[in-house]
């Protein structure tokens, strides 16, 4: 209601245009290129050039050849997201409600490890989960793992790596949501005969849903597309779709197949996100 609120006029456009133009040129337009590439004649090559022949069969071929890594990526990403939610919720809740004056410091500590190179961190997981490493030896000693059992080159290692690497994407939005909850509401639920567990599920959890939704999205999307963890901690049996796309581009030089697979991944993720947001009833997040 004030004259000092948002100003109209050309200045707004001038400020926005450089960034918007950059995103249009290098984010939106590339999608068009990707779509076009996915419909090229697959018999072309990088050197001879490609013909636009509207080859929709690129898509069916991509699905036929690579449905396994695609499904695997969604499963690994999903499981890692759930694990992140579990660990991240505990951490975010503890920081928001139990850390007192150490809140800011702990928040900083959550982020700090993740400023260290993603690849270097993942390599250290390789060491930690190594066949004669402490984790494997301990698990073998308590017979959770057979004497020849290993963690590296199994789905367990890949999912563990994904969970670790994308944890802060979960913790930060969860924290932001939980931190906003008025602690008196939880006390009120206790006063109204809800035991702590019921109080959690009837008050804290529903109020933290916006954080849960944005956290799961920010974890799931990059986790599905990631292939560094699968490559460094897994075996070819754990190959994820990102790895397939990348090697189709760089090694096989099969651009149409790579582009088609990329499009399929994007469409799948967008569809899942939309369904998820609708079911969670949090459309306003977009």
């Amino acid at each position, binding site marked *: 209601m004030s004259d000092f609120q948002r100003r109209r006029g050309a200045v*707004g456009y001038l400020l926005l245009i450089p960034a918007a133009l950059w995103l249009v040129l290098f984010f939106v337009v590339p999608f068009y290129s990707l779509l076009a590439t996915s419909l090229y004649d697959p018999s072309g090559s990088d050197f001879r050039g490609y013909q636009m022949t509207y080859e929709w069969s690129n898509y069916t071929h991509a699905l036929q050849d690579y449905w396994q890594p695609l499904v695997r990526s969604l499963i690994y990403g999903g499981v890692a997201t759930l694990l992140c939610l579990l660990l991240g919720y505990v951490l975010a809740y*503890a920081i928001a409600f139990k850390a007192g004056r150490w809140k800011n410091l702990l928040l900083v500590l959550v982020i700090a*490890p993740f400023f260290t190179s993603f690849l270097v961190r993942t390599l250290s997981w390789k060491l930690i989960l190594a066949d004669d*490493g402490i984790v494997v030896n301990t698990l073998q000693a308590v017979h959770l793992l057979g004497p020849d059992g290993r963690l590296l080159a199994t789905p367990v290692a890949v999912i563990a790596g994904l969970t670790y690497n994308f944890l802060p994407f979960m913790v930060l939005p969860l924290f932001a949501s939980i931190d906003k909850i008025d602690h008196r509401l939880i006390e009120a639920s206790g006063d109204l005969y809800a035991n702590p567990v019921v109080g959690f599920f009837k008050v804290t959890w529903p109020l933290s849903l916006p954080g849960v939704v944005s956290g799961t999205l920010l974890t799931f999307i990059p986790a599905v597309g990631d292939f560094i963890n699968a490559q460094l901690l897994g075996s070819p049996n754990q190959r994820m779709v990102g790895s397939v796309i990348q090697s189709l581009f760089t090694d096989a030089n099969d*651009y149409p197949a790579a582009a088609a697979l990329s499009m399929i991944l994007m469409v799948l993720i967008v569809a899942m996100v939309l369904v998820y947001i609708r079911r969670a009833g949090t459309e306003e997040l977009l």
Partner: protein
Amino acid sequence: MTGRWIRDHLVLMLGLLVLAYTFIPIAVVVLMSFNAPQSRLIYRFDGFTMHNWLNPCEDPSMCQALGRSIEIGLAATIVATILGTLAAFALVRHDFAGRSASNLLIFLPMASPEIVMGSSLLALFVASGLGGQLGFWTILVAHIMFCLSFVVVTVRARLAGLDDNLEQAAMDLYATPSQTFWRVTFPLVFPGILGAALLSFSLSFDDFIITNLNAGNTTTFPMYVWGVAQRGVPMQVNVVGTVMFLISIAIVLAGELRNRQRAKGLTAPTVAEDLAVQRAS
């Protein structure tokens, strides 16, 4: 007594355990930076040495890749921070047709898988006949693109949280619009801009998936690590990892310390809080 204490502190304990878990690989990185390996092929701790710290550039190609990553990181940070900050001001302070479309445009890159963005850019570069010229410039273009959104949301959150009364008070106290901006608005938004710049640098420095697709023959540090991961990792990689960790800890703790000195109670949010806010938005 003890039972009650454990019950009261259970959540905090579990939270600290999770936090400790996030530091396990860091501990390994630090430890391995002092490792004297017996063989390049077996990745385990064999003995203590200062050698890696004293000879960081034993493999010159690592330091070259590191230098390349720093160059790209700085350039991408500068451009993305400037463009992103301008856009954040436009979105918070100005009203124009297409505001919500612009907000969506800024949100989408953060919600797209890197592999898809990387493929799209490669498809664009190849389609525009730049397929043979992939390298420093194509990487830079890509990095600016994915850093931009993070800058906009970080600065936007900071700017939106600014009390308009402060600017009105400045004008009431005889500050012209430009004085109001430079004496009040900018100093108050600056921590957000700084946080955005740090975030940009770390995103750029750390990126592998998009970079790898658009790098041509150029090698960045993550690409170097990726390459040596297959054939034996020099321990100096862990020296770099340790230094990065120490630098980031120093930066965030310095910010935290400054805030603690500045005030107890209501203050400007720290970089960490800015990040938390932008993630949630």
